[in-house]
């Protein structure tokens, strides 16, 4: 797919550098005396666990924040100013970025978002015709086939991500930074992004690429900078480096291998879906979920996996079909009812639907069942702390205090809390939509372990993921959703990545 990589020649000029920068957040030293440089035409991977400081380093490069000490240079010149003019300064020097958090305006069109703030204009008037033509072209390059005057609100998360990437490729960038650009993409789309990255690097543009997916990095990066606890640990040549060595550097210790699957006998059916339809994505979906089973659902971007989970939970009403819990049909509009029956659902967009950022880890965990930590309907601080601590320990959540605002935790830890709230609620069936999105290798392994452990306790799970390679690691059975129905079934231990991939894209 991607052509062989030639390392840019060592003499190529440095585009951006950070010298001795430190950035402190309340209670966290996010960046500790970091020094970093990237050259033209180079694709530099930035690796590290959740909370290692990758995003912070990026925010310094883009001028979104200024360091407490140290200097940031783009193209040899130091970034000046503070506030929005600093970001503007960096922009003018050729820095482009796709942030980890989506930065689109939902109520505006694709074209307007693509050129946000830099709309082509004549005498103050925006030239819509030009802009939309250019936008079509730019999006076409990434395979985003949407009318440029569609509203962003109607895009799926993945399409939004592609749009953001298309945005940074506009104009004449010198340094393009991608902070986990593929975390919400399925393999096929991720390929498109990587192809684009390789292409721009070959045009002499420096690329900084953050990802938790080692195979992507192997494919496209020349070199990798590894961060840990706010410090730059090492920069290695990707070709020469061993994956295990990189992971060791990231974690500061040897990675534990994912637990092998143990096949237990699965008994009674807890959930059955019959002929479920939800226009336009799902035409007829039927399957059964047994107690203690982890059922994976694979599919391409937009195949309707999210809708399936939402329809089961009753967050969205289906057009047709039945959902049976323990053999009895449940009515639509039944979210509360499903929770009462022991179901739990973790949404795919953690930030928009998963967490209440201002509230503590404790309340984000306990909100599924405040009664469980109440004494005569009064919340008990002690019980709250104990209950939260139990979940924190069980799921290895890294947080300073049980009442630390969850918004300040790293993404992986936030995700664990979102799962943890259903563990606390003692749910027996969990519907997990992309639970490992944006989560680092270590946390991922921990989440897999948690899922297996929960399954061993007799709980059932539906596991939706766009990372094909993780499905075999956790699932007892994988169903492939394609063209609105479940097309194929794979059973452990015969879940093969390549076969899965082929099944997902069959007919495309």
């Amino acid at each position, binding site marked *: 797919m991607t052509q062989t990589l030639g390392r840019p020649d060592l003499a190529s000029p440095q585009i951006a550098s950070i010298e001795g920068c430190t950035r402190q957040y309340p209670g966290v030293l996010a960046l500790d005396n970091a020094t970093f440089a990237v050259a033209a035409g180079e694709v530099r991977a930035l690796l590290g666990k959740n909370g290692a400081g990758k995003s912070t380093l990026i925010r310094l490069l883009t001028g979104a924040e200024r360091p407490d000490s140290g200097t940031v240079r783009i193209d040899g010149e130091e970034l000046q100013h503070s506030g929005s003019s600093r970001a*503007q300064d960096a922009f003018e020097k050729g820095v482009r970025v796709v942030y980890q958090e989506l930065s689109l305006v939902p109520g505006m069109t694709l074209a307007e978002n693509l050129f946000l703030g*830099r709309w082509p204009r004549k005498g103050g008037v925006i030239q819509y015709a030009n802009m939309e033509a250019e936008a079509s072209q730019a999006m076409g390059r990434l395979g985003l086939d949407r009318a440029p005057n569609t*509203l962003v609100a109607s895009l799926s998360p993945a399409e939004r991500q592609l749009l953001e990437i298309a945005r940074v490729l506009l104009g004449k960038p010198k340094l393009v930074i991608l902070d986990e650009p593929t975390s919400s993409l399925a393999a096929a789309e991720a390929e498109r992004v990587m192809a684009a990255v390789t292409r721009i690097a070959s045009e002499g543009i420096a690329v900084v690429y953050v990802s938790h997916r080692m195979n992507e990095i192997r494919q496209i990066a020349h070199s990798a900078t590894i961060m840990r606890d706010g410090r730059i640990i090492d920069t290695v040549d990707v070709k020469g480096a061993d994956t295990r060595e990189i992971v060791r550097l990231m974690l500061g210790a040897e990675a534990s291998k994912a637990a092998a699957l143990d096949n237990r006998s699965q008994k009674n059916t807890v959930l059955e879906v019959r002929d479920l339809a939800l226009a336009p994505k799902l035409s007829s979906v039927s399957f059964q979920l047994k107690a203690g089973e982890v059922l994976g659902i694979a599919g391409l971007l937009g195949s309707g996996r999210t809708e399936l989970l939402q329809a089961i939970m009753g967050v969205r009403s289906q057009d047709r079909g039945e959902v049976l819990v323990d053999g009895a049909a449940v009515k639509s509009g039944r979210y509360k009812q499903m929770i009462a029956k022991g179901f739990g659902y973790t949404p795919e967009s953690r930030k928009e639907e998963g967490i209440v950022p201002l509230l503590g880890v404790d309340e984000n965990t306990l909100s599924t069942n405040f009664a469980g930590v109440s004494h005569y309907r009064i919340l008990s601080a002690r019980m709250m702390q104990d209950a939260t601590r139990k979940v924190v320990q069980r799921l290895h959540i890294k947080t300073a205090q049980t009442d630390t605002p969850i918004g300040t935790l790293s993404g992986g830890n936030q995700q664990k809390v979102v799962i943890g709230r259903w563990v606390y609620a003692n749910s027996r069936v969990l519907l997990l939509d992309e639970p490992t999105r944006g989560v680092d290798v270590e946390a991922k392994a921990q989440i897999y372990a948690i899922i297996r452990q929960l399954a061993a306790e007799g709980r059932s799970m539906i596991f939706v993921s766009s990372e094909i390679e993780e499905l075999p690691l956790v699932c007892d059975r994988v169903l492939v959703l394609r063209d609105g129905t479940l097309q194929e079934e794979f059973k452990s231990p015969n879940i093969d990545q390549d076969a899965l991939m082929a099944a997902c894209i069959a007919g495309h």
Partner: protein
Amino acid sequence: MSLDQTAKSASTQRSRSRFTFSRHMNELSLFVAIAVLYVVFTSTANGFLSFNNQINILRDAATIGIAAWAATLIIIAGEIDVSVGPMVAFISVVLAFFLQWGIPTPLAFALAIIVGALLGSIPGALRAYFDVPSFVGTLGLWSALRGTALFVTDALPVSIGRNDTLDALDRSFLNIPPAAIVMLVFFVVFTFVSRKTAFGRSVFAIGGNAHAALLSGINVSKIRVALFAIAGAMAAISGILLVSRLGSGNATAATGLEFDVIAAVVVGGTSLSGGRGSMLGTLLGVLVITLIGNGLVLLGINPFFQQVVRGLIIVIAVLANIQAIKRSMSRNKG
């Protein structure tokens, strides 16, 4: 929740060649509301359909409308301005004083507008540079301006004597009151600005996702200040028209105008949480509010009871609008 998502796509952005029904559901349902009001009032209220009364409606609409165009932008940007009424009254007083001091009328107009813009930019700057919520800043201005106007005039009108320019502004031109013309001209200007200029689109961007706007290099602070300055200037224009209509500056005038303006914008389908809205919607909202006011007076309904009806109609209008948008969205889904 669900509305947020459904209405998003229904909000009117720019007119496009492909006219989509669902996108303009908001305006359509307001058109229906206005048609219903016309039918009801024509058949029940004497003289409602008379030419004169239609002109009255236009003139009354101007009072709300001129301020409402700027308020629409402010609300789209995710802010709010509750200082409109006192601003109009204050400027009317200031202008009357200017004229009393013998400042030439055109210059006095210009100065009044500048004063309005400067005053407006105070809450704007507080919002942009000091993070003071615009509700607080404009509430402070609301209190301070009304107080100052009353204080310096002792609540007495400030007479301007004979003034030909101002008289002309109150005399109909081709049977249409100048206030209505001013309103419509600014409607066109604001519609254009909001749809076709970088400034207008930046306002939408800021309201939709201020962080993203900031990151993409839009000068968020400057635009925020500018918005409130514009609102101040528009209120000043309303104040000038008020002076021409009343023949004096009045510190007690335009009470509660801010409520009417916000109600018109909201009835017009602009979301108080920012990011979406349209000038056409606001125009229709202004008409709804004005028609209700006019019709109820004509019907001779007890003035206190009129307040009850107004309150109910505003809520019903918004409710019907939201339901219409929702229904059209779910129908459009397939």
